[in-house]
């Protein structure tokens, strides 16, 4: 945690309310986000219990697994979850734009013009917290290899067609969520924590209701008191008034509410199975009632979180969007388009583990995006730039002098003017260090020519971004009195170095990956 965000937390302790950590919104928010609140069954990895989802906050849809240990019911649930989610995911596939690019012929080196499809928009899933992302990833892992009745060898437990497709989408979305700044799948706690500080720790911020309590403490309560109430207040039956946002449920809920409801449903089912002809109708009714009760119980614990996620979206929508957010969203659109294309091309599901080259490529992408995100956030948001200024990685101030100088060592003289900037900042600006001017019309580099601590000035020799003539292009240099910001870091992310194709994996990394035996995946037990 930086000193600036610590300071914001300290302020929040005093004010009792959340305090801003950003002046703009740094993530894309869809016009039509899909809110997904999943619950997991305790004790088993990736075992779903329920999911509430929808694009209309007034009309959440709930799917449940009445008996989490029952495989058929789980498949049935996943099929319904898929049938509900997939149309949303696929609804962005057809509206495309043609992006012009060039492709270099590997043989001749000749460049040819090509067009690629890019989906005009992409889906966006919003979940309550990081745990929900992990849970969806587990569901993705457990379902994408399922065989269906349409497979040549459907195996003993064929799943409905939507199930592996759902798994592949969830895998893609959760994997993409690892890329810094991506917005296809967003956990609400992280979104809120990026934009506001609370007067509690980062750990406590993982609890969505407690985090939001700092944004809307009930009258007479501080944020801390409201948050504690959200964490621990229980009703007369010992149930939490604000159930956890999942995916895990409260053990007391499992014990006192869920387990009895499941047992009643199981018993009703058993009774219905052994019911005589005369009792069948009544037994069916009892099953229906038990199912409705179970449904109701889970709806009760999910609705508060559902409302919280939407409330969080309201808070975020009130912030103006950062200038570079659209550019980063385009990366998400490419990601979505790419997955759409792989599905259409009939490619196999994502492997259980990345091969060496894929892992290295993903790491390179994440590092590149991390740099891009940090730079763009700093350019879009003075509060983000303040972090860099505090760290001595940037400085802001007023230009107090522009001294025209020239480099005459070459055939034609080039402009190398000096800018004297008065600043309160204390950059790690050793002479000779390269600096970059933020907000310049064209990228402009400079070199630190000196600093005068007593005067509070830093002198920068500008070396680029002034056109090709001897005199700088008009407007390419700031004028005396103008506010400028220089960074000691580059303002664009460097390209990642090329990596070999997976089939060219070198001996140091075990050589090319063998053809992964798909059949091994299929034999997976599922009990």
């Amino acid at each position: 945690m930086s000193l600036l965000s610590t300071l914001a937390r300290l302020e929040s302790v005093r004010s009792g309310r959340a305090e801003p950590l950003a002046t703009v919104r740094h993530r894309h928010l869809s016009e039509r986000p899909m809110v997904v609140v999943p619950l997991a069954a305790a004790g088993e990895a990736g075992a779903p219990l329920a999911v509430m989802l929808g694009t209309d906050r007034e009309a959440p849809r709930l799917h449940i697994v009445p008996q989490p240990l029952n495989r058929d019911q789980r498949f049935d649930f996943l099929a319904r979850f898929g049938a509900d989610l997939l149309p949303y995911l696929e609804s962005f596939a057809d509206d495309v734009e043609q992006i012009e690019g060039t492709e270099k012929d590997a043989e001749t080196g000749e460049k040819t013009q090509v067009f690629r499809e890019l989906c005009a928009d992409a889906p966006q899933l919003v979940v309550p917290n990081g745990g929900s992302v992990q849970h969806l990833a587990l569901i993705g892992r457990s379902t994408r290899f399922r065989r269906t009745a349409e497979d040549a060898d459907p195996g003993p437990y064929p799943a409905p067609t939507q199930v592996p497709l759902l798994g592949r989408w969830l895998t893609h979305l959760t994997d993409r969520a690892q890329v810094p700044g991506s917005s296809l799948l967003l956990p609400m706690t992280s979104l809120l924590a990026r934009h506001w500080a609370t007067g509690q720790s980062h750990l406590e911020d993982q609890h969505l209701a407690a985090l939001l309590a700092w944004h809307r403490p009930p009258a007479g309560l501080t944020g801390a008191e409201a948050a504690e109430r959200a964490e621990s207040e229980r009703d007369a039956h010992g149930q939490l008034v604000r159930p956890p946002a999942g995916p895990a449920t409260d053990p007391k809920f499992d014990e006192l509410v869920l387990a009895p409801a499941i047992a009643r449903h199981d018993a009703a089912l058993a009774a219905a199975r052994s019911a005589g002809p005369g009792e069948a109708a009544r037994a069916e009714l009892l099953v229906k009632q038990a199912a409705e009760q179970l449904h109701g119980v889970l709806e009760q614990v999910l609705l508060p979180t559902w409302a919280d996620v939407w409330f969080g979206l309201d808070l975020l929508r009130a912030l103006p969007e950062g200038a570079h957010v659209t550019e980063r969203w385009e990366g998400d659109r490419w990601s979505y388009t790419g997955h759409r294309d792989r599905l259409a091309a009939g490619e196999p599901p994502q492997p259980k583990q990345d091969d060496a080259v894929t892992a290295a490529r993903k790491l390179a992408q994440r590092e590149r995006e991390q740099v891009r995100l940090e730079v763009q956030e700093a350019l879009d948001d003075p509060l983000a730039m303040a972090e860099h200024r505090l760290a001595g990685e940037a400085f802001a101030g007023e230009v107090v002098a522009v001294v025209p100088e020239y480099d005459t060592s070459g055939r034609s003289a080039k402009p190398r003017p000096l800018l004297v900037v008065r600043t309160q900042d204390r950059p790690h600006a050793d002479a000779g260090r390269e600096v970059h001017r933020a907000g310049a019309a064209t990228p402009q580099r400079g070199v630190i020519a000196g600093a005068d601590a007593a005067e509070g000035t830093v002198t920068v020799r500008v070396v680029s971004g002034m056109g090709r003539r001897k005199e700088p292009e008009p407007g390419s240099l700031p004028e005396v009195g103008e506010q400028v910001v220089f960074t000691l870091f580059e303002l664009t992310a460097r390209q990642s170095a090329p990596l070999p194709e997976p089939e060219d994996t070198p001996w140091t990394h075990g050589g090319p990956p063998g053809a992964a035996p798909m059949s091994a995946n299929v034999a997976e037990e599922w009990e």
Partner: protein
Amino acid sequence: MTVGMTADQAPGAAADAAVAAILEAAVRPVPGAPRGVVVDSPPGAGKSTLVVRAARELVASGERLMIVAQTNSQVDDLVDRLATKGPDLTIGRLHAGDSRPAPEALRHAGVTASEKVADLLEHDVVVSTAAKWQWVRTEAPWRHAIVDEAYQMRSDALLAVARLFERALFVGDPGQLDPFTVVGTDQWAGLSYDPSSSAVVTLLAHNPAIRPHRLPVSWRLPASAAPLISSAFYPYTPFRAGTGPGERRLEAAVRADGTPVDAAIDEAVESGWALLELPARHTVRTDPQAVAAVAAVVRRLLDRGLTAHSEQGTAPVEPGRIAVGTAHRDQAAAVRQALVALGVPVDAAEGPAVTVDTANRLQGREYDVTVVLHPLSGRPDATAFHLETGRLCVLASRHRHACIVVARAGIAELLDEHPSTEPVQLGVAVKFPDGWEANHAVLAHLSAHRVPLG
């Protein structure tokens, strides 16, 4: 398992035998031998000398050679050494457009610098950073490569450059700082080719036939330091000093003035170590008192006119032979500022200067005397960063004569109260030693050389 030497040999003989075995394996591999040779080198064990020798022998046997180092300054250093020891070699210094090689590298007749590898293909040796090599496209890969500081190279960098050579000699110090990344890599933890792990870890996992060689003797560390550094940081791969007790000696021309700073200097002159201890207090990173103490020690080291006697002869301890090591960059900046205020030169561009830098940047460097601001000094909590074994190892193993540590009291208590609830990833080899144990061992040793300040 490493190929080591027995302890009863004389240091020189043991080191020579180790080097001979390495050169044999690297230059004249037997048919069917693994394609990689790995050499673990503790601090100052002659790694650079080995690299230069291996390069010369490979060239002498008619091979073209590529050398991969990790930073531009390492590359420049290496080029300078190679050209000095092998004036007959033609050396290509491949560099990126935005980083000009250092003048020391370019002062030799045999050295050519270029941004394009095509200009350098005919040279005996081409040297560059891993980052630059990754971009090299060539029809004619090298048969031999040397990868220097291989433990600091990331697995994904090796993945990108391995296509350029058939065989390689990997040399590095497993005890220094691990490579790192700021983004999440948990999903690859435990995979042999985790792209964020060290290149050597991946190489060994995929080539189990490679048995690392080990350089058994530190020529840098004095007899007062090698046993501590060996047992604290290399518990399973011990090494020893190349010189015996008394073979290295410091001498001060000016007598102590009775201050704790001078007492600490005397202690270090006498025993090779000193702990200048400030009163216990929680402080910000740039603790002004600790910074002032570090600067005062350096000032007095210069004022007292130290002379270093060693197997290499007798020489004054000038600013260029002194380094200050810190954990953080802002600490280094604060120390530099304090030194400037005391009139101590810190800018190498303007003549001999005291080096002030973080552990990361001091890796691979060597000085007569070092002054270390202890990473845990004044901290209310110990984080994984501050406990990282490699950080303390680098800081405590840069000196040929003496190391003076400046710290606030209370580090032992801080260590005692540190929660030890590290997560464990299945399949990831546990790195030894544990940062806690290493810190504790160094602190226990230093407590015998303690000089309280204030």
